């Protein structure tokens, strides 16, 4: 049985109600749910299905299709390292390996203590100041080993 930390059915209902009458409401609803809970709690799925008159399978299909939607809360910090070609051309592979080694997690994993989630991202559009990263929503360009180490230190706070 999956746990659902922070789950609040009333809040979920309020969020669903806020968007349900817009055109194509599913993605805006899921974005808002994730914003509120940090992930898409499973009990929200049947509620969304009911409100939009679609099947629960359709909702689950959408939740699992998009990379952005989380099925469990992320770590306290989220460090995304761009791994696309323009960053590869400037050494992003080595930086990812360094981050993996120092944090003891692989790309796509959260540390056991829940401190940090390390993720790949395929392009932040900062290809002219690559390699790039995003930490807790803040973007960083011209990443090198020193700058990366500073970001890794931030994740231990």
């Amino acid at each position, binding site marked *: 049985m999956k746990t659902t930390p922070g789950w609040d059915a009333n809040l979920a209902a309020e969020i669903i109600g806020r968007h349900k009458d817009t055109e194509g409401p599913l993605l805006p609803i899921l974005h808002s749910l994730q914003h509120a809970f940090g992930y898409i709690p499973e009990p929200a799925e049947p509620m969304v299905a009911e409100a939009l008159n679609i099947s629960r399978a359709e909702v689950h299909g959408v939740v699992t299709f998009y*990379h952005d939607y989380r099925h469990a809360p992320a770590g306290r910090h989220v460090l995304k390292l761009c791994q696309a070609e323009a*960053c590869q051309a400037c050494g992003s592979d080595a930086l990812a390996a360094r981050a993996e080694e120092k944090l003891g997690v692989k790309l796509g994993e959260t540390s056991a203590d829940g401190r940090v989630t390390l993720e790949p991202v*395929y392009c*932040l559009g900062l290809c002219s*100041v690559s390699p790039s990263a995003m930490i807790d929503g803040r973007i960083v360009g*011209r990443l090198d080993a020193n700058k990366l180490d500073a970001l890794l230190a931030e994740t231990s706070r």
Partner: protein
Amino acid sequence: MSAIRIYVPGDAAAVACGADDIAKTIRDLAAQRRIDVQIVRNGSRGMHWLEPMLEVTTPEGRIAYGPVEAGDVESVFDAMLGNGQALGGEHKLRVGKPEDHPFMKKQTRLTFARCGIVDPRSLEDYCAHGGYRGLNKALAKPANIVNEVTQSGLRGRGGAGFPTGIKWKTVADTKADQKYIVCNADEGDSGTFADRMIMEGDPFVLIEGMTIAGIAVGATKGYIYIRSEYPHAIDVMNDAISAARRGGVLGAKVCGSDYVFDLEVRVGAGAYVCGEETALLDSLEGKRGQVRAKPPLPAHKGLFGKPTVINNVLSLATVPIIMDKGAEFYKNFGMGRSRGTMPIQLAGNLNYGGLFETAFGITLGELVDDIGGGCFTGRPVKAVQVGGPLGAYFPRALFDTPFDYEAFAAKDGLIGHGGIVVFDDSVDMAKQARFAMEFCAIESCGKCTPCRIGSTRGVETVDRIMKGIERTKNLEVLTDLCNTMKFGSLCALGGFTPYPVMSALTHFPEDFGGAPRLEAAE
């Protein structure tokens, strides 16, 4: 005396290099020294190696300094403002007038005419720099819009290069109670950032372009689908849409006319395939972003089954200048069937990366060597990927290829959305081919088999080749697989992934042969 204007770009490339902190420091310095300073968060001029590039307005014009790091801010501030006067004085980081810089002088800026110059959140500033002249001309002769866009020769800047005017005409000719304009701002290709720059630096030009499209085809509602990786662009677009509504250029009476047009930003959720137009429409409808089979065309049955114009940001943002200056003016730039200008994005291992808008026809070699200045690592350029993750890798031997849709297609490549990613000689092309397949496997929508299964088999096959296992046989398998993906896939994701793979194999065979490679290379 009015405040001295200092420009600190709010463009994500500048912000990623510290522009927000610099803006704060400048505010503090101005307060300390009691100098009346107005900070404008402009877009970027596109000289990204100079970002964050600060500018001060002086009696002689705007004077730039860059790249400014945290430790330089105070001395740059003092050079800009001697004794409280807008001086633009000497400093080791002084660039001079940005428009006089060789990188800018060599360009023809039509789509990007205002980017980096105006305050992106100010409708007044937009209008003061020629904004809404295109729409006003369109309103004077609305029946002529589609013809003008067709005559201009404008082709879809998202990558497919389909004539924009023909798309619009199809929608205009289709009867329906509701039509839509959808802007594809799901700029997922690595090496591209022109859409992001326009949205962050000149968002009203996109709003104006979409409004003109709405009037041309009879659509009253538009959506801008922006990828979630672009939070800054989302913010600026939303602010600009609000300002446009307040200013009466969007909403119930567009510029006082009887036309209705409104816009909404929708945010993607991290799926590369949603940059494909039909997958994007499904995503907007709240479905999995899966590719639709065509026909029906989106122009007949698009968003919610209604006739829909779906265009890239750059295509729509180019419409206002075409309406303002005329189709003839725009058409006069370019070569062959590639008319007008292309905002080219120089990225990766380059000395001078950034945005370079120029008429079609410039060669790849000029772009990489002369404009981009070669690799910043100081090593020789080995390969250049043009057109994003689905674009071919070009060797130096093909650097004489002119930037033109047909010329690139003739060399088994594509210009795509105009991104150029440069690699030095340390790159392993087999690894890049493997990545192309891996990326396709990660991002495949799963609807068609060649893309969904072919990409995974492709990764495995490249792995075997890299390990030296039955090399000749596996090279044959890879070639055959690429052929199946190219001709059997539903959309460009599976259909174009063979471009980077086969170009790597064709132009750099040495990276696929020889001794067995170590696992550690991955």
